[in-house]
């Protein structure tokens, strides 16, 4: 470690693993989701039906990514309130302190780091709110995706029991009136929201690299090693 700097822990091992699992699943969901929406590679492959399940595999990967998102989201939602490390909820509540911090970090971004009036050693309100937007988008993908999924369980049965489609109806039927009243609207918004997520990811990656370059505190290392470095006062 460079003299004059100290190390601050920012992400636990679990948070880092979760981050990369979500990142991989997101790529998988986008690639397979686009195929489901418009099968874009041709399958006039001279292959008998014996192991040719191109759409089925795409849907399988998509739904596997989805179920991993499900589990991850439930844990993340829990950690928002009950994390023993840092509870994100404390940074989201619009207390005067958080609001000031939010705008100070934003100011830092739009003044290209000429103004920096906040403590960048810990998680800040701006980034936490930005992550909240992601978690809400992901939750929306879950609800709309599970609504599309339950259409195929119209018998009311599933391999894990009748409770599963029943719970899915209860949890996701609201997405139909919410998006415009037809199943197609749910599908449209499931697809559209993918682009909002990709935009989110683009800025997310840019911003983390930008911080690393301009703040000179090794922010990008957080997601690999779990810590960054700040000047000792």
């Amino acid at each position, binding site marked *: 470690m460079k003299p004059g700097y100290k190390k601050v822990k920012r992400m636990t091992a679990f948070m880092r693993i979760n981050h990369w699992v979500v990142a991989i699943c997101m790529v998988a969901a986008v690639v397979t989701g686009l195929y489901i929406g418009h099968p874009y590679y041709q399958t*006039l492959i001279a292959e008998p039906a014996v192991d040719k399940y191109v*759409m089925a595999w795409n849907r399988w990967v998509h739904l596997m990514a989805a179920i991993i998102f499900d589990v991850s989201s439930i844990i993340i939602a829990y950690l928002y309130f009950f994390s023993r490390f840092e509870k994100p909820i404390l940074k989201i509540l619009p207390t005067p302190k958080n609001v000031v911090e939010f705008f100070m970090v934003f100011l830092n971004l739009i003044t290209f780091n000429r103004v920096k009036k906040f403590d960048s050693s810990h998680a800040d309100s701006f980034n936490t709110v930005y992550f909240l937007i992601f978690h809400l988008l992901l939750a929306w993908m879950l609800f709309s995706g599970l609504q599309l999924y339950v259409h195929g369980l119209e018998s009311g049965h599933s391999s894990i029991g009748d409770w599963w489609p029943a719970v899915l109806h209860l949890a996701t039927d609201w997405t139909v009136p919410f998006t415009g009243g037809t199943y197609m609207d749910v599908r449209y918004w499931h697809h559209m929201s993918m682009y909002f997520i990709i935009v989110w990811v683009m800025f997310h990656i840019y911003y983390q690299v930008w911080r690393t370059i301009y703040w000179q*505190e090794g922010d990008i290392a957080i997601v690999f090693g779990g810590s960054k470095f700040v000047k000792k006062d």
Partner: protein
Amino acid sequence: MDRRDALAKMFSAKGVRVNTNRGEAYYEKLRETMEKRLNELRQTPAATKMDIHKALDAEGLSRRDFMKWASAITAMLMLPASFTPLVAEAAELMNRVPVIWIELQDCAGNSEAILRSDSPTIDELILETIDLEFNETLMAAAGHQAEAHLDEAMETFKGKYICVVEGSVPIGAGKEWCTIGAKAETFEEHLLRVAGNSAAVVAVGTCATFGGVPAASPNPTGAVGVQDIVKGKPIINIPACPANPANITGTIIHFVLTGQIPELDHLNRPKFAFGYRIHDNCERRAHFDAGEFVEEWGDEGAQNNWCLYKMGCKGPMTFNNCSIVRYNSGTNWPIGAGHGCIGCSEPQFWDKYAYERPMADANIKAPTGGVEKSVDEFGLGLLTAAGVGIAIHAAVSVAAGKKDEE
């Protein structure tokens, strides 16, 4: 009921599943209700001379054909096989059930679907034997005579007749364009008057159920479905364009048998008919899973009956039993004939389903309300805008930004 059942019941209020195994006690009770009801009907005089046996004779169909049909309907209504004789009896008593069939903003396509086939199926014959008190397309009477007949039928069978509605109801700015009779009753008034005295209302076809084609954007007449107008009456929706005669007969027979409407889904469609997703019972589904799609009309894939998804098939989002019951005595159905499903039994189908490409490629009004774009075009626009924004920020950061000192 054990706890799991109770929970499932609570949660699946909107599922489309019909429980077909409700235990002996339930079916015993149902049988009693039906027998009582059929007895009552038998006491009432037949309203037409036509009955199903005459109709069958005229078409050269045997009793055996009739019983085969009755067991198929029993299965369709999800009743145990032992109910077949009751269903057959109900069919024989159909000429005692008064029906008033009114037409609003429609093309009479549902009537045509039932009446115009060259070799009518038993479903269609049944509908010929019902006591059809009023139907503009079929009846001989016209003008004041027809109106007098309608009034009389409504009075005589007050609270007993089934009101069948075909066509949507205009309630917007243009509603005066559509009137009926010498007193220029608007369609809405006409519907409210006829439905008001009925025992139940059956909306037949997608126009009557959800507004259908007349309600398609920009909906110049402000067309809506029957259920948006008629309140406080049991309403059964039998959408599709046209509605399948098998489903109309099934619903009416159910009503004749039990005096009640069948179990309905969240769109008031009978679950026995609309509890199936097209895509899950489609003969081309194996090709969907294999990723073998028709790319153009008449191509290699089309000749090999591959999946029509890329030609715009909306089977994955459409609930109906066409893939099982088919049309015209099971002769064929759209996907069998090589055209994708256009989702005609779903609300707003004309705007949201009936285009010949997958949703992802369809030009839909952008969320901003502007030019019509496909969701991917809009999305790529969004990504480009974000990319440009990021590039500008990066460039200015390099030029004017300040790195913290190390």
